[in-house]
């Protein structure tokens, strides 16, 4: 056990050295250098103070350990000089840390005009990432060009979330009543993790995704590709794609697995028992109500956890999703095996 642990740790260290520092993940935005610089400055100060203080403590503790009953102690009670020094020096150092953090923080919030607009919407428990100028919308995936400023406008449709990209050293809460956001310029191509950093309930720990930084050529190819492209309402898989786009799949299985919400395969046309004991037959109208006003009637045994999609779906999209659920049919595995 110990050996395997050491192996893991060693592996972790080597990996971290190759991609980032001992403390920090890879640096992949223009802000990373400044943040890491300040981090290292505070770290060095901390180590100097900590080692100095502990050395003094151990030295005093050993030198002045009680060796005999008659041992006399120093009558020292205070020393103005010393107390002034150890108030003034930390004050100056703290002001330096403050000013450094403050300066970069202001820069972090000054968005260049030319930035590419990206809209980030959090919902329990997925991220929807839209590109208004490209007509694209990705799920849990942020694709950005290398060396170009990108501005994220962040919001939430339900509770608080927080959009964290460790490689960029950036994070901002997603609020349901207000837009927040940040901007960055990626400095390294690659694939980096992104996380929800504000606790948001059951699946908070899996509300994660990837950031892909592409060089100019790859970016052009991506823009032209149909990855994350707008959906074609006449295509056969229109509903299925919507189902993923709006994150329905995060809570509703189509393979009979019980997740946060009830599985949706094989329910159409069948009776379901509601929380109040009543029986409802799953038809188009029930599905419409369940999507637009999810808490109106809850299936027995499930918590009222679904956000409303009123105002978020067009009628065409709503129909697409209902058609998809309809065609999931009744031939798959039962809901509660």
């Amino acid at each position, binding site marked *: 056990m110990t050996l395997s642990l050491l192996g893991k740790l060693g592996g972790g260290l080597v990996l971290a050295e190759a991609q980032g520092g001992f403390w920090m993940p890879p640096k992949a935005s223009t802000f990373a250098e400044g943040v890491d610089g300040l981090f290292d400055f*505070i770290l060095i100060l901390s180590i100097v103070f900590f080692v100095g203080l502990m050395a003094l403590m151990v030295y005093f503790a050993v030198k002045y350990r009680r060796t005999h009953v008659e041992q006399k102690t120093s009558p020292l009670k205070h020393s103005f000089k010393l107390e002034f020094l150890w*108030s003034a020096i930390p004050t100056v150092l*703290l002001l330096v840390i403050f000013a450094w953090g403050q300066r970069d923080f202001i820069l972090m919030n000054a968005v260049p005009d030319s930035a590419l607009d990206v809209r980030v919407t959090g919902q329990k428990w997925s991220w929807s990432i839209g590109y208004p100028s490209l007509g694209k919308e990705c799920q849990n995936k942020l694709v950005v060009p290398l060396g170009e400023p990108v501005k994220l406008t962040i919001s939430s449709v339900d509770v608080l979330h927080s959009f964290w990209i460790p490689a960029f050293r950036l994070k901002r809460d997603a609020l349901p009543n207000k837009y927040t956001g940040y901007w960055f310029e990626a400095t390294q191509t690659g694939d980096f993790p992104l996380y929800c950093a504000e606790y948001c309930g059951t699946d908070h720990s899996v509300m994660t995704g990837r950031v892909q930084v592409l060089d100019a050529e790859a970016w052009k190819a991506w823009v032209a590709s149909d990855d994350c492209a707008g959906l074609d309402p006449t295509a056969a898989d229109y509903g299925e794609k919507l189902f993923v786009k709006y994150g329905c799949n995060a809570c509703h299985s189509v393979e009979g697995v019980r997740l946060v919400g009830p599985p949706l395969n094989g329910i159409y046309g069948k009776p379901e028992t509601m929380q109040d004991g009543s029986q409802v037959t799953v038809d188009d109208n029930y599905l419409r109500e369940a999507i637009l006003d999810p808490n109106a009637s809850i299936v027995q045994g499930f918590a009222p956890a679904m956000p409303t999609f009123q105002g978020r779906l067009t009628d065409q999209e709503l129909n697409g999703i209902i058609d998809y659920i309809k065609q999931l049919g009744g031939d798959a595995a039962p809901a509660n095996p």
Partner: protein
Amino acid sequence: MSSTTIDGTAPDHGAPHEEVDYIRAKKGIKSWLFTVDHKRIGLMYLAAVSLFFLFAGVLAIIVRLELLTPMMDFLADGDAPEAAAKARDVYNQVFTLHGAAMVFLFIIPSIPATLGNFFLPLMVGAKDVAFPKLNLASFYIYVIGACFLLYAILTTGLDTGWTFYTPYSIETGTAVMASTMGAFILGFSSILTGLNFIVTIHKMRAPGMTWTRMPLFLWAIYSTSVIQILATPVLAITLLLLFFERAFGVGIFDPAMGGDPVLYQHFFWFYSHPAVYIMILPGFGVISEIICVHSKKHIFGYKAIALSSLAIAIISFLVWGHHMFVSGQSEFAGVLFSFLTFAVAVPTAIKVFSWIATLYGGAITFNTPMMYGLIFLFTFTIGGLTGLFLGALTVDVHLHDSYFVVAHFHYVMMGGTVIAFLGALHHWWPKMFGKMYNEKAGILGSLLVFVGFNLTFFPQFMLGSRGMPRRYASYDAEFEGLHALSTYGSWILALGLTWTAVYLIASFWTGKKAAANPWGAASLEWATQSPPIEHNFHETPHVDADPYNFKEIDRSQAAAGHH
């Protein structure tokens, strides 16, 4: 020092009026349940907070077991996706209850309600606190509040995190109402205890005990009480509003009704940041006592330490926004709160420097209380220094809500308050129970706690800065090694704490009888017998010197003006 003899020898032999102590003064369960004796009330609190510490500690071990591996396994029943989703719900409840129980039921009342209650009247030379019946009422209010939280746990649990952030706390199906009611009621216990202590310190100090002759523990408890009285009502209002929001949908925090969820965070942290100092200031007080008594040195910089407690109490009200640098508050507010946050670091640094300077020229005994004193200086210094990373705006944007924060506040709350609490228990154990614990067992326990604590929490700094978010039930495989280390550490920590409970309880039967003043201390609580008599002192003590005036201090040097 005073007309009461404190000379390091037990006054038992031949003491003409050795009396029955407060434990044996009255018998029967009723004599405890209806007691107004501050010492008995302190012990009842001690029993209660210890129980909740055990409970919340077991929850912490469960959290660490789940985090031993990246996927959901410990809490999951099999590896089907539905089992994982269910296990994540359980995990969310476990970490929430760990936090809520530790904060509201354990740390906030830990030192003030147990040791503050027991020793504050003794240290000022009084027979009891100013309002003994109110003191008992505070205890029962605490019990009622705790029952509400227990009710929440036994029914639907709680899954909001101890911070109850809106709007999640408005819509979740768990027992938010019962829990907020519980915390609301617990707040009153805290307010009334603070009030009692402030009045006692103002009005009941023994003749001759000027403000600057008070032991620093009392300055710390006094500063804590000021915060308790001023900040706790804000928490009460906030929780009440949250309660109304859920019960009647008043729409103050709920964005669906035009409310503002970030307003809740402002209200919450306006209390909860000062509350951090409610938790740590009493620990500072304990460390001042322990370091002086067990090195037989006068405290270095008495006034600086006493006044820095008050300074911290005041500035602590102005830094709440540093919990919200990434919440969407204005940049200007962020800059302002960052500045004020660094301002609060100065008085804290002064304290640490003064404690270490106190060791200079002392006669240091390496007993269990002193071990905890030195461990405190180690762990709390790390806790304090890592706060600088989080106060710096840009660095906090990266570290916010990561494991770095988890590690930081555990170094402050556990490495600070809990270590100080353990030190205080050992320091005052002989006085409280009249028994000495086994010293070797104590040293061993302190070393296990030290190693276990650092192994548990130090790797979490690295986890956080490398990108591990907090409150995650499962995580990326790259974090496994550090999480595993942390979990192994938690086992050593649990072993150390269990060992400590065992030898302390064993001392009731096997411990040697404690002398009145086993450490040769100079403050008033050591002037009465161990355990104290019901009314603390036979005659009102008279104080004519300060509490760190040990007989070992070389007065010839002082007379020569040698500094």
